[in-house]
C-alpha cells in the first residue's frame, strides 16, 4: 500500500524579503503576504470555529496581529507557521466565547485509546465520494469533522488538509511531537469510522443512509 504524499510547497525564496520590507513599514509587501495565506487562514479558522462570521473576524484579526507584532518574528520558523499559530489562538478564543459551557483547549484530556479503536471494518466502495453529489458530500464531510473535539480537529486540519509537517504543527500549536501524533491518529481513525457509515460497500438494492448527519 502506498503512503500519503505530503502536499507541502517549498516556501517562496523571497518571503523573508517581504517580511523584512513589511517590518520596515511597507504595507504593499505585507499585502502580498496576505494574498499568499488568506485562503489558508480562512480555511483553518472555519474548521476550528465552525462559524463563517467568526472565521472572517479571525482572518482580519490574525493578519492585523501579525502586522503589529512583526518585530517579534525572528525568522527562526517560517512566516506561515508563525501566522498559523496566531490564527489558531484567535480561532480558539472565539470558539471558547461562543461555547463557554465547554472548555475548549488544545491540552484537553484525551480519552482512552478505546475511543479510536475501529469498530467498523467494512470495506468502502472503490470511489466512495462518487456515490454522492457535491452538495451531499460537502454536508457529510462538514458534519463529520464538526463532531470531532476541537483539539483533534485542529491537528487534523493543519497536518492533513493544510499539509504542515508534524514539527510545524507542534510548533504552531505549542504541543509536543508525540502529542501531535497521538491526536492525529485518533482524529484520522475517528473520521474514518464516522465516514464508513456513508462510504461502505453496499449490497445491491441497499439504500444510502438518510441525510448528511455523520455524527454517531
Amino acid at each position: 500500500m502506498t503512503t500519503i504524499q505530503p502536499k507541502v510547497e517549498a516556501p517562496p525564496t523571497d518571503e523573508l524579503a517581504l517580511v523584512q520590507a513589511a517590518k520596515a513599514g511597507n504595507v504593499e509587501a505585507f499585502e502580498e503576504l496576505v494574498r499568499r495565506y488568506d485562503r489558508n487562514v480562512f480555511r483553518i479558522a472555519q474548521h476550528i470555529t465552525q462559524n463563517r462570521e467568526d472565521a472572517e473576524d479571525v482572518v482580519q484579526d490574525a493578519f492585523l496581529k501579525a502586522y503589529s507584532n512583526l518585530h517579534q518574528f525572528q525568522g527562526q520558523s517560517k512566516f506561515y507557521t508563525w501566522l498559523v499559530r496566531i490564527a489558531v489562538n484567535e480561532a480558539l478564543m472565539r470558539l471558547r466565547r461562543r461555547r463557554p459551557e465547554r472548555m475548549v483547549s488544545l491540552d484537553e484530556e484525551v480519552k482512552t485509546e478505546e475511543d479510536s479503536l475501529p469498530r467498523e471494518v467494512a470495506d468502502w466502495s472503490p470511489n466512495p465520494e462518487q456515490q454522492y453529489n457535491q452538495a451531499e458530500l460537502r454536508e457529510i464531510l462538514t458534519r463529520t469533522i464538526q463532531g470531532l473535539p476541537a483539539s483533534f480537529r485542529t491537528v487534523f486540519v493543519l497536518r492533513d488538509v493544510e499539509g504542515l509537517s508534524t514539527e510545524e504543527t507542534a510548533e504552531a500549536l505549542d504541543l509536543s511531537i508525540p502529542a501531535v501524533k497521538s491526536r492525529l491518529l485518533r482524529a484520522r481513525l475517528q473520521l474514518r469510522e464516522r465516514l464508513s457509515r456513508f462510504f461502505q460497500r453496499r449490497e445491491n438494492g441497499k439504500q444510502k443512509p438518510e441525510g448528511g448527519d455523520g455524527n454517531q
Partner: protein
Amino acid sequence: MKCADFLSELTNYLDDAIDERTKAELEDHLAWCHNCYVVCDTTKKTIEIYRDSQLYELPEDLRTRLRTAIVSKCHSHKK
C-alpha cells in the same frame, strides 16, 4: 505483531515516517490481516477525501473585502 501494534504505528506508516524494518513488519501484518488492511486503506482515503474536498474556500468577493479592510487598518496602524 498484533492489530493494536499495527494501529499505533498507522500514522507513522501512512506518513512514511518509519524505518525500513518496521515498515516491512507492518506490511507483513497487512498481507494477512484483512481488517487492518481495510482500516489502513480507508484511513488513507479519509485523508485524501478531506484534502481534496475544497471545504471552506474563500469566495473572491469576500477575499477582496477582507484584504481591503486589513490593508486599510495596517495603514492606520502606521500613522
